[in-house]
């Protein structure tokens, strides 16, 4: 039987990153993700790696930019206000087509907001966040096990597609403890002929850059990048379906909200309501295929979110507005109880969306 260890969600990310070959961590303290930095500060010096506390989130993402350009597996982690500061670097990393791994353990916003769990950075993560046309692969763990496995997956995908992979977690999964295993970890490696290593006077110089002053060149770069994004949308979307076989209603939820929603779905089933759950595991690419297929079977959707309703827009787009979509939400650090979600399911059963 696989060896299982009890870990905090944030520590699971840190340990998984090390197992994925990450030896460089640059960060700046912010609640509720500091366990990642603390774990790295302890471990990295003992395994020949580098932990460096930067002077700001801006500096830390730019250290990631440099280290990633040098061809290394590198990461930073932060929480919502800190991710806003990293947006500049994320845009440059996208524009330079280099791989990076970034963790956002979300807290409530806007502004300084609060320090309790939230999912209100969905737009920021999936629609860009920084300036310009770009995407990030966004992974949404719903358990401590997934904090680990999606971290390893994230490093692989980042290298494969030369772009940022972001873990979009929340304070609850970051702080809670569950038993996990690392035995299924698949570490992939990719050649990086574009990396800054020094020419050794043997090759033409490599340039990592996002500046294209000729508009036709910049346009071409963006079109090429979006071709790659299209391929990712077709092949990399991940989701979980729960009790969807005969479902007449579909709850959509990710991360900690999906754990609450699952309990509510089970409770509704006990009342005889035919409801199921689709849990996006990748938020970009969004599991459009699964939702659009469900729209042909169910009479409506309920989007359960810890925000004022952000993913709901993607649910409507994915289902092409074929069915009504209700919103069941709390925000600011509040989490809905299974009963609140159950109430939304009951209302939807009666046709109230």
């Amino acid at each position, binding site marked *: 039987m696989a060896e299982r260890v009890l870990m905090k969600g944030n520590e699971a990310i840190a340990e998984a990153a090390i197992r994925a070959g990450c030896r*460089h961590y*640059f960060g700046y303290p912010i609640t509720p993700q500091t366990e990642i930095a603390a774990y790295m500060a302890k471990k990295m010096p003992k395994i020949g790696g*580098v932990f*460096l506390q*930067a*002077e*700001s989130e*801006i*500096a*830390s993402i*730019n*250290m*990631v*930019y*440099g*280290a*990633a*350009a*040098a*061809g*290394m597996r*590198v990461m930073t982690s932060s929480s919502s206000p800190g991710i806003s500061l990293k947006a*500049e*670097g994320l845009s*440059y990393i996208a524009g*330079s087509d280099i791989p990076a791994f970034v963790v956002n353990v979300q807290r409530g916003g806007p502004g300084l907001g609060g320090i309790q769990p939230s999912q209100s950075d969905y737009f920021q993560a999936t629609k860009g966040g920084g300036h310009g046309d770009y995407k990030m692969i966004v992974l949404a763990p719903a358990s401590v096990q997934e904090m680990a496995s999606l971290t390893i997956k994230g490093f692989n995908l980042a290298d494969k597609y030369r772009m940022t992979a972001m873990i979009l977690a929340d304070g609850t999964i970051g702080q809670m403890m569950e038993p996990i295993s690392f035995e299924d970890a698949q570490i992939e490696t990719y050649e990086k002929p574009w990396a*800054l*290593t*020094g*020419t*050794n*006077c*043997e090759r033409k*110089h*490599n*340039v*990592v*850059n*996002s*500046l294209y002053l000729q508009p036709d060149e910049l346009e071409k770069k963006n079109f090429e990048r979006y071709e790659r994004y299209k391929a990712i949308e077709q092949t990399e979307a991940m989701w979980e379906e729960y009790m969807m076989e005969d479902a007449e209603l579909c709850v959509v939820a990710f991360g900690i909200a999906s754990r609450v929603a699952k309990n509510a779905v089970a409770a509704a089933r006990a009342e005889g309501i035919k409801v199921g759950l689709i849990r996006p595991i990748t938020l970009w690419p969004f599991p459009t295929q699964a939702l659009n297929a469900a729209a042909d079977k169910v009479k409506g959707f309920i989007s359960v979110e810890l925000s004022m309703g952000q993913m709901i827009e993607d649910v409507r787009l994915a289902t092409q507005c074929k069915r009504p979509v209700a919103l069941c939400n709390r925000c600011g650090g509040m989490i809905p109880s299974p009963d609140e979600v159950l109430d939304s399911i009951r209302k939807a059963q009666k046709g109230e969306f």
Partner: protein
Amino acid sequence: MAVVFEKPKSLANVPLHYCPGCPHGIIHRLVAEALDELGIEGKAIGVAPVGCAVMAYDYFNCDMIEAAHGRAPAVATGIKRCRPENIVFTYQGDGDLASIGMAETVHSAARNENITVIFVNNAIYGMTGGQMAPTSLPGQVTQTSPYGRDVNHCGWPIKVCEMLATLEGPEYITRVAVNNVKNVNKAKKAIKKAFQNQMDGKGFSLVEVVSACPTNWGMTPQQALEWVESDMLPYYPIGVYKDRSAAKEEG
């Protein structure tokens, strides 16, 4: 026939985009000569800024990266911490290094990052068309200080070398100029030393090069070099502000 003068190997054989009379060409050449003479072109990784030198990544033959505005020392830190065997340098202007990137400058110096920083101070934002810089002189007329820099309104110019020299961290902080042949030769020595320091593992070395911007100062190249001597150097005196190894040897 003997070759008595040629382009440094580290400098790419491409036309530079700089304005006529701009000393960036001289400073690029000094950096390239230092790389050649120390035999480190193949190990060098350069970080270009945002500003007039934004396209420096096309001008040096070593591996290059283009940083966001002011972030070059952070990018250089990331590279150097991954590849300590490589020689990592930044090439930055005054807006980049002393305004938007001040935090990155101060903290990389405080950490004594083993990198080399070439800081070109021409007291103006050149690329965007001549706005007031953190190093513009009191009374200096620019696009955004059209009545002259009023220190009561927008504060005093920052003396980067003097400020960084107060830190325990950095190894070598010096100010040079490129307004005449004698100063160019001194600048070359300082730049070479700043790279040698990195090769020797000594840490953060910054060379401030007082330069000119004839185009945005509204002067001829000759007048601009004279203004460096008459107006800039009295406020920004040439000299070594910190040299830890030399101090140790003397001490």
